[in-house]
C-alpha cells in the first residue's frame, strides 16, 4: 500500500509562501516525478510528505490515515537524499541495518533483509566497508538499500542522481526504474532534470513557484501541454515558441512547434531561414535556424545524415496538426 493524498497543503516560512495551496492524489504503486526549475518548491513538497517539514495548513493522508502531524518515522516512508546522507561511522551493513535496528527487529530478520537488499543492489562484496571507501554510485546504492529494507509504503527520492556523473546517472536511472517494477511500491522522485522525469515517471507533476502547472503521463505532457510553461519545460531540445504573425494567423497569441514537427527542405517550404548552428548527434542533427519570424533561432530536428553547412539557406514547414496554440494568458487553446 502506498496511497498518498494531499489536501489543500500549504507551506510558508514566515511571510514567504513556498507552496500556496495544493491538492494531489498519488496512487498505490505509481512512480511520480516532481519536476520544475530550482526554487519551485518540489523539494519542500517532498519534505512535507516525509514529515521533515511541518505543513502550515492542509492535510496529508497516507493510506487513508491522516499523517499530517505524524513524525517522519511513523509515516512508513523511506527517503533517499541527494547527498546520500549515509552514516559515515558505520559499515555498509550497519547503514542498511540501521532502520531495522531502530524498529527493534530481531537479528536474524535484520541479517536476512540486509542480505536480500545487498543482493538486489549488488552490494554483497562491500558490506563491511565504510561509506568513505565507496564510489558515488555505490554510496547511492547503499542509500537505496537502507530505504528498501524497511519495506516502506512509499519511497521518496530527493534528486538522488544529481551528484553522479553523466554516464553513471543513466545507469542508476535504469536501476531505479527496474527497482520500481520489481518492488511495485509507490515512488516519489524529485528532480529538476526533465529527461529523468520523462524516462522514469508514470506520472509527472510539473511545479512552478509552489503551484502545480500540470499533472499527467510523460506523453500527455509532451503532446498536450496545458500552458506555455509546461510546453517550454518539457522536451529537449525545447519546443519553438513563436508569437506575432504566424500565431495571429492561427488565432493564437503564441504558437508552439516541436523541433521534430518541422519538415526541412533545401528547396521549398513555408518559412525561409539560415542555418546558424548545426549540432550533429549522429542519429539526429539539430539545426538552429535564424528566421525573420522570431528573434530566437528555431530548432529543427533533421536526419543524422542531412547535408547542411553553417549559413546554408533552408526552408521549414510546420506540421499543422502538431502546432500547439496558446492564448494571451499562456493557456493552451484546444
Amino acid at each position, binding site marked *: 500500500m502506498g496511497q498518498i493524498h494531499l489536501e489543500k497543503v500549504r507551506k510558508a516560512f514566515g511571510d514567504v509562501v513556498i507552496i500556496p495551496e495544493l491538492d494531489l492524489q498519488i496512487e498505490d504503486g505509481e512512480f511520480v516525478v516532481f519536476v520544475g526549475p530550482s526554487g519551485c518548491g518540489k523539494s519542500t513538497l517532498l519534505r512535507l510528505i516525509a514529515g521533515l517539514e511541518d505543513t502550515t495548513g492542509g492535510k496529508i493522508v497516507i493510506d487513508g490515515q491522516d499523517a499530517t502531524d505524524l513524525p517522519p518515522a511513523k509515516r512508513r516512508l523511506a527517503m533517499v537524499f541527494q547527498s546520500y*546522507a549515509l552514516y559515515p561511522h558505520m559499515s555498509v551493513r550497519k547503514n542498511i541495518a540501521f532502520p531495522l535496528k531502530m524498529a527493534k527487529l530481531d537479528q536474524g530478520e535484520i541479517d536476512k533483509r540486509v542480505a536480500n537488499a545487498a543482493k538486489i543492489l549488488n552490494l554483497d562484496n562491500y558490506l563491511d566497508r565504510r561509506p568513505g571507501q565507496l564510489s558515488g554510485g555505490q554510496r547511492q546504492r547503499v542509500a537505496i538499500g537502507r530505504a528498501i529494507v524497511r519495506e516502506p509504503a512509499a519511497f521518496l527520492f530527493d534528486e538522488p542522481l544529481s551528484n553522479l556523473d553523466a554516464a553513471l546517472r543513466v545507469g542508476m536511472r535504469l536501476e531505479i526504474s527496474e527497482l520500481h517494477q520489481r518492488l511495485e511500491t509507490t515512488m516519489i522522485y524529485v528532480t529538476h532534470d526533465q529527461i529523468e522525469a520523462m524516462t522514469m515517471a508514470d506520472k509527472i507533476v510539473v511545479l512552478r513557484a509552489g503551484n502545480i502547472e500540470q499533472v499527467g503521463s510523460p506523453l500527455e505532457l509532451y503532446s498536450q501541454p496545458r500552458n506555455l510553461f509546461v510546453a517550454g519545460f518539457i522536451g529537449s531540445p525545447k519546443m519553438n515558441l513563436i508569437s506575432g504573425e504566424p500565431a495571429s494567423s492561427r488565432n493564437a497569441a503564441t504558437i508552439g512547434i516541436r523541433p521534430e514537427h518541422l519538415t526541412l527542405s533545401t528547396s521549398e517550404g513555408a518559412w525561409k531561414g539560415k542555418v546558424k548552428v548545426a549540432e550533429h548527434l549522429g542519429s539526429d542533427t539539430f539545426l538552429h535556424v535564424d528566421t525573420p519570424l522570431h528573434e530566437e533561432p528555431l530548432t529543427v530536428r533533421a536526419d543524422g545524415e542531412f547535408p547542411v553547412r553553417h549559413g546554408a539557406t533552408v526552408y521549414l514547414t510546420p506540421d499543422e496538426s502538431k502546432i500547439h496554440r496558446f492564448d494571451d494568458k499562456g493557456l493552451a487553446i484546444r
Partner: protein
Amino acid sequence: MARNVSTGRKIGTTILAWAVGLLIFFPILWTFLTSFKTELQAIAIPPVFVDFHWTLENYETIQSQSNYFHFMLNSVYLSLGSTLLGLIFAIPAAWAMAFSPTKRTKDVLLWMLSTKMLPAVGVLIPIYLLFVNFGLLDSRLGLIVVLFLIDLPIIVWMLYTYFKEIPGEILEAARMDGATLRQEIIEVLTPMAVPGIASTVLLNVILSWNEAFWTLQLTTTQAAPLTQFIASFSSPEGNFYAKLSAASMLAIAPILIVGWFSQKQLVRGLTFGAVK
C-alpha cells in the same frame, strides 16, 4: 601540484618555526631546569643553563611537605567533573542551535560568550556568599559547578562549530529511519562528532585544570586542587624558586602528558565520504 619552494626559503621558514616554538616553550623548559637546581643556583646571576649539579632534592622536599596526590586527585575530579557536566548540557544545546537555528540563535551564542567577558572578581562576593550559605566552601561539588558554569559557553561554542560541519541531511535520514531524538543524538550525531567532542573535552579539561582564581578563593584543603598546591609553595616561605618550579612541574605534568598523547587523536578527522 605541489608548490615550488626554494631550499633557502624552506630553511628560513624551518628556522623561524623552531624559533617561535622554542620561544613559546622556553618558560616551561626554564621551569623544568630550575626544578632540578639548588635554591642558590636557581637565583644565580648570570643564570646557569644546563651546567649545574642536577638534584632531585626539591621534589623530595615537596613530597615530604605536602601530599601531592591529594591535590592531583582533586584536580582530576574538578576538571573531569566540570567537563562532563558541561558536555551533558552543551551537546543538546549545541545540537539545537546547529540544526534548528532560529533568528535569535546568533544572539544567544554571543550573549553566552559575553558572560566570559565579565571579570570573575566581579561576582566573587555573591558566589562566595552562596557557597557559605549552601555549605559548599572547600567542597568538590561546589567547585565542579562553578567551573562547569564558567566553561559552559566555551563548550557550547566549540561543539556548535563542530556540529555545524555535520550535514543536517544525515540527521534527517536518522529521523526517517525511525531514530528517536535520543538515538539520533547518541547513535548518529555523537559518533560523527567524536573528534570535535574530544578536542572540546581536552581543551576544557586543560582550562579547568589551570583555573586558579576560583579554585584558590573557594578551597582550602579538602577540595584543593594543584593550583593550591603551587600557591602553597609561593607565599609563606618567600621565594624558593627551585621548589616552586618543582611544584609547578608536578602540577602541569599530568596535563602535559595527556595533551601530548591526545594530540594525534585530535588532529585525525573521522572518515569522511558519507556526503558527496
